[in-house]
């Protein structure tokens, strides 16, 4: 044992092991990738370092990492095993890969707002997205269905009046502004769109004589809510050159909505919590469903005060309620963004469209703050995309509808899982017996069985950190056989009575295994990248199974069998 501590190679491996362990512990989300990386690193190290004890410790350390990962982060199972609900989201038309990724991210974001981290969202083909929830609670699923099918409502407000709403905008007309348009207006980015007659008239009226006024662009503006800020917090968000009074005025201007023509009066009140004690008597919620939006870090005292005034509290992280300001060309302080109430942007009206004449085509343009060319392009693209999505009524670029959901009871999934695990065990057991019968040599059989067990642990750990679904489970059972194949090739080669020495035999065997692994991977790789989610798990586990056979059996066999069989042979000859 002593010499192990002095061995630099061993110490290096131990260091790698400790690093990986810490990494797996701190980033459970990517533990599967870390293990794959470790597999390759340890596998490669063992190719170059010939000492048997190094090769053996590489294997042992990998297995320990895999087991640690299972113990620390657990294993994820698909809803076929864990029970749960699958909701298919059907897109109105087929989309390209980029849009699909955007959609999946947007839906993930929508669902994650609910604090459901275990929700799985993935694309199925180019027209469908599946959402899987490990729960069959009716109320919860209804809620998620509501969140998913919700389509945002866009509203542009000028000086307290509704200037434009999403239902008057032609959705197909929302496109990035042409390069020519940008050059003419001297802007870095732009989005143009067209409205119908009613929309044009409404806008002309609301914007009449309001040159340089901001258009407050709201998405799903709450109709019955008030905003409350702690003074210290509000000060943090103010612009350096503005005082509290100017800031509050800017906020009130942005939050006012009192449109007689449209019959809407839904001004959002804004208050400073610290001042409430003085005006306690007058503070009262408008209706019994008025919401008080506050940052989640306010004190208990304020909470109680707001509740006793008849408000329903909505607590959000500071980043969502934090107002962002800017100054217009004419020096007016304007609120540019308050995420929680859906105020997402405040472009300023140009004089040309405030004459009162109905106009059907509009463009929203802007500049960027970045100076470097690539960063500039990037920022311009982001701003343009965000305006496009606001105008389209939400973060989804395509209309969606929900299909019938599938609910799998957890008890059934558990039975499936138990039976499948018994299946893995039996496959391993039968294969061990057969190997024993085939070679009639316990010293050749034991290593095969042990290495198969090691491979299984690593495979389960890696796949379990992604998701084990039905296809992946089938692949794991198959991989037990695939992994054992490599050992059979080596053992047969070693047991052959010919004039080659043990190293040549190993070389022969590894040449065959290497080719086999490449072929097996090549035939499955296209499937791995096909996006056919139903069977990707199968592709991953069979590819990993053969890779493990190569990367693990190589060092481990070199360490174990050479010694055992070599010694045996030597004794006999």
């Amino acid at each position: 044992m002593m010499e192990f501590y002095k061995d630099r190679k061993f110490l290096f491996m131990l260091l790698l092991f400790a690093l990986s362990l810490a990494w797996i512990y701190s980033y459970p989300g990517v533990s599967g990738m870390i293990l794959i990386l470790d597999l390759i690193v340890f596998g490669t190290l063992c190719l170059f370092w010939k000492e048997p004890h190094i090769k053996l410790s590489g294997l042992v350390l990998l297995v320990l990492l895999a087991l640690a990962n299972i113990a620390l982060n657990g294993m994820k199972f698909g809803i076929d095993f864990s029970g749960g609900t699958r909701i298919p989201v059907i897109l109105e038309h087929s989309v390209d890969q980029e849009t699909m990724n955007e959609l999946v991210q947007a839906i993930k974001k929508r669902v994650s707002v609910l604090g459901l981290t275990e929700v799985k969202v993935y694309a199925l083909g180019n027209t469908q997205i599946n959402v899987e929830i490990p729960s069959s609670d009716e109320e919860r699923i209804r809620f998620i269905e509501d969140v998913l099918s919700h389509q945002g409502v866009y509203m542009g407000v000028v000086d307290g009046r509704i200037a434009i709403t999403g239902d008057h905008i032609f959705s197909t007309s929302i496109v990035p502004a042409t390069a020519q348009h940008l050059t003419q207006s001297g802007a870095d980015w732009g989005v143009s769109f067209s409205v119908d007659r009613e929309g044009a008239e409404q806008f002309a009226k609301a914007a009449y004589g309001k040159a340089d006024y901001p258009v407050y662009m709201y998405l799903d503006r709450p109709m019955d809510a008030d905003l409350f800020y702690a003074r210290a917090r509000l000060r943090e968000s103010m612009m350096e050159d503005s005082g509290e009074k100017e800031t509050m005025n800017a906020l009130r201007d942005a939050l006012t909505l009192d449109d007689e023509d449209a019959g809407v009066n839904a001004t959002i009140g804004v208050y400073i919590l610290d001042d409430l004690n003085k005006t306690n008597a007058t503070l009262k919620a408008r209706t019994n469903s008025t919401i008080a939006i506050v940052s989640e870090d306010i004190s208990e005292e304020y909470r109680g005060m707001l509740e006793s005034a008849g408000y329903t509290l909505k607590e959000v992280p500071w980043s969502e309620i934090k107002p962002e300001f800017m100054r217009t060309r004419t020096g007016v302080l304007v609120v540019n963004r308050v995420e929680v109430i859906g105020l997402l942007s405040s472009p300023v009206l140009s004089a040309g469209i405030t004459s009162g004449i109905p106009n059907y085509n509009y463009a929203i343009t802007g500049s960027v703050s970045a100076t470097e060319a690539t960063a500039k392009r990037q920022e311009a693209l982001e701003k343009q995309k965000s305006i496009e999505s606001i105008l389209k009524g939400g973060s989804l670029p395509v209309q969606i509808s929900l299909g019938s959901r599938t609910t799998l009871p957890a008890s059934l999934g558990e039975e499936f899982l138990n039976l499948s695990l018994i299946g893995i065990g039996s496959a391993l057991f039968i294969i061990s017996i057969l190997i024993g019968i085939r070679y009639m040599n316990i010293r050749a059989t034991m290593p095969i069985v042990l290495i198969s067990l090691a491979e299984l642990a690593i495979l389960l750990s890696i796949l379990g950190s992604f998701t084990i679904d039905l296809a992946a489970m089938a692949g794991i059972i198959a991989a037990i056989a695939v992994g054992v194949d490599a050992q059979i090739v080596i053992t047969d080669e070693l047991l052959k009575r010919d004039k080659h020495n043990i190293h040549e035999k190993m070389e022969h065997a590894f040449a065959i295994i290497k080719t086999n692994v490449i072929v097996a991977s090549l035939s499955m790789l296209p499937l791995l990248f096909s996006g056919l989610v139903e069977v990707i798990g199968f592709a991953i586990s069979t590819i990993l199974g053969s890779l493990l056979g190569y990367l693990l059996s190589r060092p481990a066999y070199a360490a174990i069998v050479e010694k055992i069989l070599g010694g045996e042979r030597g004794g006999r000859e």
Partner: protein
Amino acid sequence: MELPNIFKGDYRLLAIPPLLLVLVSLYFIPQIQMGVDFRGGTLISLTLEQPIDSAALEGQLADEGLDADVKVFDTAVGYKAEIEFPQSDRLLKAEELKDEFEALLPEATNLEIMAGMNGSYRTEYEEKRVEINAVANGMFDLAGTNTRAELIDSVNELEREFGDSYKKVYADYQEAVTAPIKRHVDYTSISVQTVSPMLSTHFIETAINVAILAAVLSAVFVFFFFRAVVPSIAVIVGATCDIIIALGAMGLFGIPFTLPSFAALLMLVGFSLDTDILLTMRMLKRRGDPREKAHDAMKTGLTMSVMAIVAFSVLFVLAVLTHIPTYYEISAVALSGLVGDMFATWGINAVMLLRYAEKRGE
């Protein structure tokens, strides 16, 4: 355990059984049934407390105008039923109308804007509206929506109504297939898998691309690796025969062609090439009597095949116990292919290589 050397004597005779198998398989291949993934349609899986009479349910569904195929299974985890509906003509029609509508929409929108600004575009806009109205009315009729396109003022509004009607066709279809089942069957859980015409087309296209890519990659690698024509062709012929035999078994045993069975076929390509390559490397890169070498390779190859057969048999038993379609489709295809591979590798590939090696040796 000693395996007799089948390559002693006239080994050419060994090619007869696999060739016969391939011929028989070619006969059965056209009988392969497409699964719901590729054919489209709806597959409803139920878990049941009590067994139900599949013929009776089929009758009840037929009375409601539904063409369904009902199967009931007694599994280790209770009774299960699978009810399959073919692709609905209404969905196909809705899909067609939507494509037409989307093609017309940008121009109609544009003309409406132009007409709003400049009266001279009015006639052109109205002509376009007649065209797009006809398509929209088709969808409204299909969905049973109580409105006419002519009554809708702006194209914007028309697009929304059209979208709602399209969603309604889908929702109605799902309701139409699930409602009668809810009425007639007492189940504990239900899973509804609808593969739309668009999705099945996508699956087919992707599968074809994947299959071609996998085949080309593997073939290129084989040629590159051996850098000799005859052995490469022998290896590829062996793998091809194996896939043909697996496909034939799918037709014979009624294993549906689905995404899982497709994945199993791809795995077979890899596995089949594995044994072929093992044989070829042992034959070409070592010295000694070709027949002895072939026999040696066969011992190793058969052990590998047996191990794989064991693993997939376990999966097959699991499939029988649980009736999980994914398990069944993968294991059944893999088992057929693994058995086929024994014939193809040691009957066709080995024979071709032996001829090649012995001729070269002369």
